[in-house]
C-alpha cells in the first residue's frame, strides 16, 4: 500500500469523525465558490446584454453626416456645405459593391401627432425599408415595418416606437388606428419591439415615429438628407468602404478627398469592440472580487488545518513513532485540504448553477435589472472557478502539512 493510499485512508477517517468542523469549512468554501461563480456569471450576463445593446443601433451600421469643407479645391472656396442627396445615395449604391444596404434619413424634431383627443409631440423620421434590418427597427408580432411599396407609392403609413405608442395610444391597440401627423391622417402599421439602446443619434428609437422617405418629402418638401445610414457586406472592413465613400462624394461635390471635415462617419462597429474591451475589464474585476472571497475561505481552511495539526500534534507524533513516513503525514493533511476544498467547491458550483438557472427563468420588468442582464454560466467561468479551488486546496494544505511532517516525534509525543 503506497504512502498515498495510507495518507488518504487517514484523511478519510479524520474527516468522517470530525464532522462539525469540517461542515463549517465546507460552508465557507461553498460560499466563496458561490460568490465567485455568481460574480463571474453576472459579469458574463452583463457582457452579453451590453453587446446586445451595442447592436441595438442595428447590425453595426455606419452613419454618415455631411460637413463643411475646410480647404480650397480646384478654384472653389473652403467652407462649403456638403449636402447628402438622393443622387449621392444612388451613386454610392452603384459604385461601391461592398455596401450591402444604404438609405438616406430625414428627420424633424417635435412633430405634432394626434389620436382622437390625445396629442403629443415627437421626432419623425423618413426612412426606407432597409432600416428594419440595419437599424434594428423590428416590428412587434402582428405588425410590420415600412416596405418598398410604401416607399414607391408614398403611402401614409406610420411605424412607431413602443414608448411613443404608450404616450399616444396608452393601453389601446395602435395598429390599424388612424393618427394625424401635422394634421395629415396616417394609418399605424407597426410598433417597434422594445430594445435597450446604448448608442443613439437624434434620440432613442423607442420614442420616435418613422414614415417612408417619399411620404416625408410630400409633407415637408424635398431637401438634403439629415444623414445616410449604410451597412457593409460581411467580411468587408468598414474603413476601406469609408475611403471609397469619401472619394465618391469628393468627386461629386468637388472637395479634397483628404478633407476630414467634409464628411463625418460614425462606425458603430467600433463601439462594439470598445464594449467588448470594457466588459472584459469588468469581468476581470468581478473575477478578482470573487477570487478574494474564495481566498478568504482558503485562509479559513488553512487556519483550520493549522489548528488541527496543533491539536493533533501528539497523535502525529504517535503515528510517526509507529512508523508513519513523513510523506504519509503530508498527504493526510493536504488530502484533507483538497477534499474540503473539492466538496465545498462542488456544493458551491451546484448551488450557483441552481440559482443562475432559476434566475434565467424569472421574467424581469425593472429597467435597471434589464440593463444588468441575466447571469450566465460559461465554460471559462467554470474552469476559472475549478482552477482557483484546486489552488486554494493546495495552498491551504501545504503549510500545515509541512509543519506536521517536520514535527520531531519525541517532542510531538510530549506535546500537551
Amino acid at each position, binding site marked *: *500500500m503506497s504512502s498515498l493510499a*495510507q495518507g488518504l*485512508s487517514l484523511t478519510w*477517517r479524520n474527516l468522517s469523525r470530525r464532522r462539525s468542523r469540517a461542515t463549517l469549512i465546507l460552508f465557507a468554501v461553498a460560499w466563496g465558490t458561490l460568490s465567485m461563480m455568481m460574480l463571474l456569471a453576472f459579469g458574463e450576463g452583463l457582457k452579453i446584454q451590453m453587446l446586445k445593446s451595442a447592436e441595438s443601433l442595428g447590425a453595426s451600421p455606419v452613419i454618415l453626416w455631411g460637413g463643411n469643407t475646410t480647404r480650397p479645391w480646384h478654384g472653389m472656396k473652403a467652407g462649403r456645405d456638403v449636402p447628402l442627396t438622393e443622387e449621392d445615395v444612388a451613386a454610392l449604391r452603384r459604385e461601391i459593391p461592398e455596401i450591402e444596404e444604404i438609405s438616406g434619413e430625414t428627420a424633424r424634431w417635435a412633430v405634432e401627432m394626434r389620436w382622437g383627443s390625445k396629442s403629443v409631440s415627437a421626432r419623425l423620421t423618413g426612412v426606407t425599408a432597409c432600416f428594419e434590418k440595419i437599424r434594428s427597427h423590428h416590428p412587434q408580432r402582428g405588425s410590420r415595418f415600412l416596405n418598398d411599396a410604401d416607399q414607391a407609392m408614398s403611402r401614409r403609413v406610420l411605424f412607431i416606437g413602443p414608448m411613443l405608442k404608450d404616450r399616444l395610444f396608452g393601453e389601446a391597440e395602435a395598429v390599424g388606428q388612424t393618427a394625424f401627423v401635422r394634421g395629415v391622417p396616417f394609418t399605424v402599421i407597426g410598433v417597434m419591439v422594445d430594445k435597450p439602446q446604448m448608442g443613439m443619434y437624434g434620440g432613442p428609437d423607442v420614442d420616435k415615429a418613422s414614415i417612408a422617405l417619399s411620404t416625408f418629402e410630400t409633407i415637408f418638401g424635398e431637401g438634403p438628407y439629415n444623414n445616410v445610414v449604410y451597412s457593409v457586406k460581411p467580411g468587408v472592413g468598414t474603413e476601406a468602404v469609408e475611403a471609397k465613400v469619401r472619394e465618391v462624394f469628393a468627386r461629386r461635390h468637388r472637395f479634397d478627398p483628404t478633407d476630414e471635415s467634409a464628411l463625418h462617419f460614425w462606425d458603430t462597429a467600433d463601439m462594439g469592440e470598445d464594449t467588448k474591451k470594457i466588459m472584459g475589464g469588468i469581468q476581470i474585476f468581478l473575477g478578482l472580487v470573487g477570487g478574494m472571497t474564495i481566498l478568504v475561505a482558503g485562509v479559513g481552511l488553512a487556519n483550520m488545518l493549522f489548528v488541527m495539526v496543533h491539536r493533533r500534534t501528539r*497523535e502525529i507524533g504517535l503515528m510517526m513513532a509507529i*512508523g*508513519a513516513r*513523513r510523506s504519509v503525514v503530508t498527504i493526510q493533511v493536504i488530502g484533507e485540504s483538497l477534499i474540503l476544498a473539492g466538496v465545498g467547491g462542488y456544493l458551491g458550483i451546484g448551488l450557483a448553477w441552481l440559482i443562475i438557472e432559476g434566475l434565467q427563468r424569472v421574467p424581469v420588468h425593472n429597467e435597471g435589472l434589464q440593463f444588468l442582464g441575466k447571469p450566465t454560466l460559461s465554460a471559462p467561468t467554470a474552469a476559472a472557478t475549478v482552477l482557483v479551488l484546486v489552488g486554494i486546496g493546495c495552498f491551504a494544505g501545504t503549510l500545515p502539512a509541512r509543519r506536521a511532517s517536520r514535527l520531531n*516525534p*519525541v517532542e510531538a509525543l510530549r506535546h500537551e
Partner: protein
Amino acid sequence: MNETRTEVIRMEGVRKTYRSGAIEFEALRGIDLTIRSHEMLAVIGPSGSGKSTLMNLMGCLDVPSGGLYRFEGRDVAKLTSTELADLRNRSIGFVFQSFHLLPYATARENVEMPLLFGGASPRARREKALEMLAKVGLAERAEHLPTQLSGGEMQRVAVARALANDPKVILADEPTGNLDTRTGRGIMDLFVKLWNEGGTIVLITHDLRLAGACSRILKIEDGLIVHDGDAVPDGEEALAH
C-alpha cells in the same frame, strides 16, 4: 544458549546533547550497551537521569549526537527519515505511560495503525489486529472506543498495537505509571508472558518491584550507566520491598 541469541541493539559511547539557545545539556554522556534477543531489561534511575532519552534513541525516534548506535547491525545515524520510519514500523513496538491511543478509533483500528503504515491489506490488518487483541485478552472489546475502556484495557490495546508487526524489541516507557497497583501487575504479567514466548523487552520504570521481574537491570544516573546486572543494585533492594 547465549550463542543463539542475536544482537538487537548495540551502543558504543552514545551521547545525546540538547541545546536550548546558549545552554547545552548533556542528557547521555557515553553509553555502552548491548541488548540481545530474548532479554527482558529494566532501565531504572531517578527522574532526569536520561532514561527517556535512552529509550528515544533505542526506539530511533531521535538520533545520537555522538557515538555509535547499531540496530540489528545497521548504523542508525546513516538512515534517512523514511528508513527510520520503516525501521520503527517493522522492528520496534512502543508502549507509552499515557497509552497514546487515537481517541476516535476503535481498539481494533488502533491496533491496525502500524499494519496500515506497514502496507498490509485491509483484510490482513483486520485479521492480525483481532489476533493481537485476543493475545492480550481483549477479543471481546475490539470494537470499543478508548473512552469505553478502562486504563488497564487501554494499555493492553497499546501492547497489542506494539506487537502488531512482530517487532524485534518492545520498548515500554513506564507502562504501569498511570495504572493502579493491581492493574499494573496485570500488565507486567503480560510482559513477562511475552518474554517467555521469546520476546525482547526493554522496560523503563521507577517501580523496583517491576524491575525485579526482569532478567537484567540497568541503572542510569546523570547520563551514565552506573549498574548493569541481573539484580536490583544494593541499597535499593530495601526500597523495593
